[in-house]
Structures are given as C-alpha cells and as structure tokens.
C-alpha cells in the first residue's frame, strides 16, 4: 500500500504543480452579478421532487408536468397552456432565446435530502431556478436555501400557511393555495350543506402543516357558527388511526374534520368510514366527514371511502376553461391519463418563471422577482390570478370538491362542487395566521 500511496501522491503533486504553473483564470462565482448566470446557449432549471418515500407518486406526476413544460417552452408538442396564457411573451424558442435544459433530483420528502439535492443542482449543474416539492417542510427548507444561494425558488405542492407566512422569502414564490384559503372556501359550502348548528371534531397531523390547516379551518367554521368539540393531534408515523377515530362518536360531535395529507389522510379516512361514522345519526343529524385538502392521487388510494366527502383542491382536470382543457389535452395525449393538481401547479410555475424571465429580459433573480411581484394573469386554469407582491402568494379561485358517487373512470374521483371566487379567500398580508415573517430582500447571489 505504501508504494501505491506514495506514487499516487507524487502524481497528484505533479498535476497540482502543473495546474498552478499554467495560466489560469481564478474566479469567484460571480460573472454577471448573479448566481449561475447562463453563459452558453442553454439555461438549466432544477426540478427537485420526491422520487422516494410516501409522496413519490406525486413527485412522479410533477416530473411529467415539468418535462411537458420544458417541451412546450422549447417549441415542442402542442404548446399546452402557453397558448391560453394571457401573457404572450413565450414564443417556443426557450427562455430568452436559450434552450431550456433541466436536472432532476430526489427530495425523499426530507429537508436534509432536499437541500442536498438542490445544492448539487446549484453548485454542480448551474441551475438558475429550483422548483418542486410535495410537502411544506421541504418547500420551506429549500426556499430558505435558494434565498441564501441567490436563485429563484418556485414552490410546488406546499399548502402550509407558513410557506408564504412566517417563512416567506424574497426569492420564493408559491402558486399553490394554502390552509387559510382552503378553510375560507370550504366553510361557506359546509354551512350551506350541513347547517350552522354543527360540532366538529378535529384529527390533526402533529406537525406544522397540520396545525396551520387546523387553525384555519377551525376559525373559518367557528365564524359560521360551528362549535369545536376537540382537536386531537395524531403522530405523523401513525399507521392505524382506529384509536383516534373510535372515540369520535361518543364525543357529541357530528362532523369529523381530518387535517391529514397523503398516507395519513388515506388511512384516517379509511378508518373513519370503516367505523361506520357516516352511517350514524348524531344530535339528530347525519354524521359527516370533511377532508380540507384533497388530492386526486391520494383519493385514489382511499378508493370507495372518498364518496360524498367534501374538501378543497387547487385545480382539477375536469375544469372546462380553455387553459385547463389545453393542459389536460397535451398531458393526457403524452402520458395517457389526466394530470394531478401537483402536475398543474408545477407546470404553471415553470411557465410563470419563463414568462417573468422574458418580461424582465434577464435570469437575474431580482429582475424575475420584480417581474413576478404583482403580476396579474389568466389562462392557466384558475381564472384571474395575481402574484401578491408583499408575500409572493398567488391569489386565485379555489375549488371545493366532493368525492364522486358514481365515477365513470378510474380518474373520475372528484367532482367540483363550487368554484369559490378569489375575493372570498383573500386575506390581509398581516393576517395573524401569516404574521411574523419577513420577506427580506431579493438575493441575486455572488
């Protein structure tokens, strides 16, 4: 081993010496005044999605939408929502004339892994924008990283109030809706269907997203006259929710609100239906279950159990506006099934980023942030939308949906009950549920 090492050492030493002797350009990361300014004929975007762990299914759907968006930006396919988008800057010749390339990574739905993956995209692949994610913890972690590194973060599926509240960042933008909006959209529909005189029992996932979701829906339903019987926190790792569901019937509550997402939601909903809650009469009223945040992919995991259960969603493929139809068509023709809401939001985010770069005439994060702040647009499937400048949250219509009683296909699981107009879900920047954060200044990096 000794000889081997010594030889290796000598060789490396020689290489190092030669390297130092040659004329070299010693550079810090700054060329054009911002991180990873694209120099060649292409620009690299980083798609950072969960490819393993509980949200891998959604991550896969997000990746499909990203690939479709890149294809459209580069002039391939039928152009999808580029044709219906109110801003007409995108011409199908890439972004600012540069061909769009992308790198992908696996967040594993863990903050650490997500940041490692995002860092490698920034440090190794020269990504100028990071996007993706399928949970709020990861989105907030990566958003913070992008702020430090000086690249733009276009959040994927993240529903916690904190993403654009307590943890908002100048370099981060969220198209997806949030817990407050879900609650504001749902409460009137629940009031109309189930009446004012209701008592709710909350089961809440015991982590940040669950808490903000629960806080929002409790406030919104109490404003409509509902009572709250109890709020029970359930550990994230819970597999079997029977012990939490069993006491609900004797609690005097007549509505069960499941502030759960992903596997938690599937399992808690399945347990609740198995325990026959929906067949029961309490206080002379039919017992009901509500799932504030719905996802079609997750609904399919719960099978029959979602039938008739109300919730909210950011977007659904059955919408009939031009944008949604165009997107469903190009996605469906490419992959053979309709896109999920996660796919929709990340496709929109990619388009919005590209459009902002075109309008700003630069990839500089500060230019892009300026172009996105206060940007009003339509034609991306959610009606008239605005990116609010103060917290980088998109304000748009919210869909109240219900599990379909008679699905006509394996994708036809949810039906849109009401499209709640934007005005009804808006809130002030300093709303207490979003207070405490500081957007800071946009950071273009080195």
């Amino acid at each position, binding site marked *: *081993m*000794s000889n*081997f*090492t010594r030889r*290796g*050492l000598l060789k*490396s030493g020689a*290489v*190092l010496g030669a*390297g130092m002797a*040659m004329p*070299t*350009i*010693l*550079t*810090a*990361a700054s060329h054009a005044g911002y991180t990873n300014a694209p120099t060649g004929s292409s620009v690299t975007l980083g798609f950072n999605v969960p*490819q*393993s762990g509980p949200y*891998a299914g959604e*991550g*896969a759907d997000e*990746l499909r939408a990203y690939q479709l968006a890149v294809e459209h930006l580069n002039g391939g396919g039928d152009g999808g929502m580029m044709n219906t988008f109110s801003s007409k800057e995108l011409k199908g010749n890439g972004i600012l004339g540069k061909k769009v390339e*992308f*790198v*992908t*990574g*696996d967040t594993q739905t*863990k*903050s*650490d*892994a997500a*940041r*490692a*993956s995002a*860092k*490698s995209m920034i*440090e*190794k692949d020269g990504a100028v924008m990071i996007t993706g994610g399928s*949970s*709020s*913890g990861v989105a*907030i*972690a990566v958003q*913070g*990283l992008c702020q*430090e*590194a000086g690249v733009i973060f276009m959040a994927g599926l993240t529903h916690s109030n*904190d993403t654009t509240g307590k*943890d908002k960042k100048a370099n981060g933008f969220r198209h997806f809706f949030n817990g407050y909006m879900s609650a504001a959209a749902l409460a009137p529909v629940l009031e109309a269907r189930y009446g004012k005189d209701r008592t709710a029992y909350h089961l809440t996932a*015991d*982590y*940040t*997203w669950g808490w903000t979701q629960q806080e929002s829906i409790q406030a919104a339903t109490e404003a409509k006259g509902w009572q709250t019987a109890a709020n029970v*926190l359930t*550990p*994230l*790792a819970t597999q079997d929710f029977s012990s939490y569901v069993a006491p609900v019937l004797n609690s005097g509550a007549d509505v069960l609100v499941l502030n759960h997402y992903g596997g938690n939601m599937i399992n808690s909903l399945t347990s609740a239906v198995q325990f026959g809650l929906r067949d029961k009469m309490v206080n002379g009223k039919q017992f009901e279950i509500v799932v504030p945040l719905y996802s079609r992919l997750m609904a399919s995991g719960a099978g029959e159990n979602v039938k008739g259960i109300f919730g909210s969603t950011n977007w659904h493929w059955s919408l009939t506006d031009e944008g949604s139809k165009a997107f469903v068509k190009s996605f469906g023709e490419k992959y053979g099934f309709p896109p999920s809401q996660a796919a929709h939001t990340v496709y929109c985010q990619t388009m919005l980023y590209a459009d902002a770069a075109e309008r700003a005439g630069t990839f500089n994060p500060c230019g892009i942030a300026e172009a996105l702040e206060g940007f009003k647009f339509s034609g991306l499937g959610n009606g008239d939308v605005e990116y609010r400048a103060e917290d980088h949250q998109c304000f748009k219509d919210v869909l109240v949906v219900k599990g379909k009683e008679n699905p006509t296909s394996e994708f036809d699981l949810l039906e849109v009950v009401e499209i709640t107009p934007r005005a009804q879900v808006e809130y002030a920047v300093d709303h207490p549920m979003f207070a405490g954060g*500081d957007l*800071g200044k946009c950071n273009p990096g080195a």
Partner: protein
Amino acid sequence: MKSLNSSDKRTLLFVIVISLLAPFLLNPFPTGSGMAQFNAGYPDLMQRFAYFGILAIGFNILFGLTGYLSFGHAAFLGVGSYATVWMFKLLSYNIVPGIILAVIMAGLFSLLIGFISLRRSGIYFSILTLAFAQMSFALAYSVLTPLTNGETGLQVYNDDPQILMGENAITSPHLFGLKMQDTFTLDLGPWAFQFNVGYYVCALFLILAFYLSVRIFRSPFGLMLRAIKTNQTRLNYTGINSRPYTLAAFVISGMYAGLAGGLMASMDPLAGAERMQWTASGEIVLMTILGGAGTLIGPVLGAGFIKYFENIFSKINETVLHGWFAWMPDGLEDAVVWVLHLFTGKGWHLTLGLLFMLIVIFLPGGLMEGADRITDWWKRKRGKDVSDTSKTPAE
C-alpha cells in the same frame, strides 16, 4: 506521534492527502462532458463526505471496538445540529461557539442515554438506543417544535437576537470572517475545480477526528475496548468493571456525532428533525459495516459510498440516459434506457440495495476487504511477499 506505527502513519498521511486533494480527485471528468454526471467534486457533496466521515469514524469507535451496536446515533447528530443553529440564532454566524456547544450537548446527551442503555448488552442495548432516538425524533417533530421548529427545521430568522452581530456582520456561517459558502473555482482547460472554504474546514476536522481515532485504537484504552468485544464476561471475572470503558466509548462516539452535526449545521444552517429518525441511525450503521467495521479507514469509505450514490445516482434521469445512448439505434436505445432507468434516477435505492447485498456477500469485511484484496493482488503481481499482517483490519 510516538505510539503510531509506520502503517498507521501511512494511513494518516493517505487520509490527509486525499482530503486536501479531494477537489481534484473527485472531479476527474471535464465539465460539460457526458461523464461529468459522475463528478462528485462540488462543495456540498465534499462537505457531506467529510462530516459523514467524522460521524462514521466516531460510530466505529463504539461499534468497531466494543461491538456495541447503537441504533440511535442519529439522535446525537440531531442534538449537535440543533445546538449549532441555536448558537447562530442567539449569538452570531461564527461557527466556533456552535460547534463547541454541539460537541458538549451531544456529549451530555450521550452520557445520559449511554448510562441507561449500557445496563444491557447485545440486541437489548440496540433496542434501548433505538427507543431513545425514536422518542427524540418524535418529540422534535411535534411537541418540541418551539425548540426545534418541527417539520420545517430549525433555521435563523431575520428577527432573531444574534447579540454578537454587528451592523454589517456576515449573514451566513463563517469562521472569523471566512465564509463557509465561499468557493474559488480553478478553471483548468475543460475542468473546473471548486475549492470551498466550508469543505476545507470540514476536512481539517476530519483529519483531526481521524488522528484522534487512530490514537484511541492504539491506546491501552482501545485495547481495553477490544477486550470487551472479545469476551466481556471473562473481563468481568478478572475483576475489571467494563462499564466505565464502554460508557466512555459511547460518549466519545456521541461527541463525534455531535461534531458532525455541528459541522452539518455550519455548512447548511438548517436542522431538520428527520436527521434523528431511525433510518438515519440505520444509515450510520450501514456506512460502518459497508466500509468495514473495526478498520480505521473503512467507515469513511462507507460514508462516502452511500452519500455518493444518494447524490449522484438519484440525478441520472431518463433524459440523461437518452443523452448517453443517443448513438444507438432507436429501438436498442429505448431498451437500454428502459433497463437502466430502473437503477438510476428514482430507482437509485434499488442500486444501493443491490450493492449492499453484493458487498456483504462477496466482501465480508466490507469495502476495506476489497481494498486489501486489490493491494494483495497488486503486491503479488509485483512478486512481493504478501505476509505483511499490518494491513489486516484491527479486529
């Protein structure tokens, strides 16, 4: 270095050279070439190699020497990270107080857990440590959110006190002004080598940690630990109480984990609760066994191996594969890409699982055994005597 034999000195020198030249060694392929995908010479991954190396070295002091298999070491990593981020929040972004507190807190925490868990041995010890770590994780994720910021992970906010921060102080982790994220790029023809301050800080700690571990391995204390592994009962019959020794080893290895956690938070000032989960503890165990438990350098190799696959293979998606095999006829290209995509990108876990199996089946001593076999083969080829025993793992 009096007590080190020449083989140890060589190993130490090897570690020093490799650590210092890592930006070159890990970047063998020109930037922009198809093979550049396999380059690992970018700051984040090099930092990861270093602090996970420290973690594995520390774990090896416990497991490799005493044979006590802790399944909860990630808890100390987490405690170290939280301690460091709290120092950032309260004092300033200088990493020194953070790292010191990380080591101390991890030491105290491991003293507590070790004191209780070491009352049992074998698998009962493993499950006790696992139970403590899982409780720490569950609580950090939920109830302890005021202290850990739960799901989101502990991070520094603009309105944190940071009492030692001046008006124009640096707003990212630094060592007396040297910013961890600063990187100098050396453009050398088609290559771009990145020299990162944070990495070199980690590398210095790695060398220090490695040196310390060599000293422990060769000390009377290390000998005592090995005696515990060989036959604890017999040792007890000779009238020696082995508990203080195992507890010391446990605390030392906990402090190593705390140091790794502190460095982790210094390189990237966010501490997520998942780094305390049992999967993270399991990963430490895998790193050590994979590299070669009980050997000096094996655990570092094991750590590098796992982190390499996690960060490099997970990024090889179908588009990349199509790019590589574009020269093939269409049908063949699709077939090759279809087969390979099962193993890369979203299938990187599959490759990792297969490699775990292959290595443990064919190289019972881990990667170090592979290295030894290659060295033996090399020596035999050169017609040299292979009877040198100094390279055998310190079993």
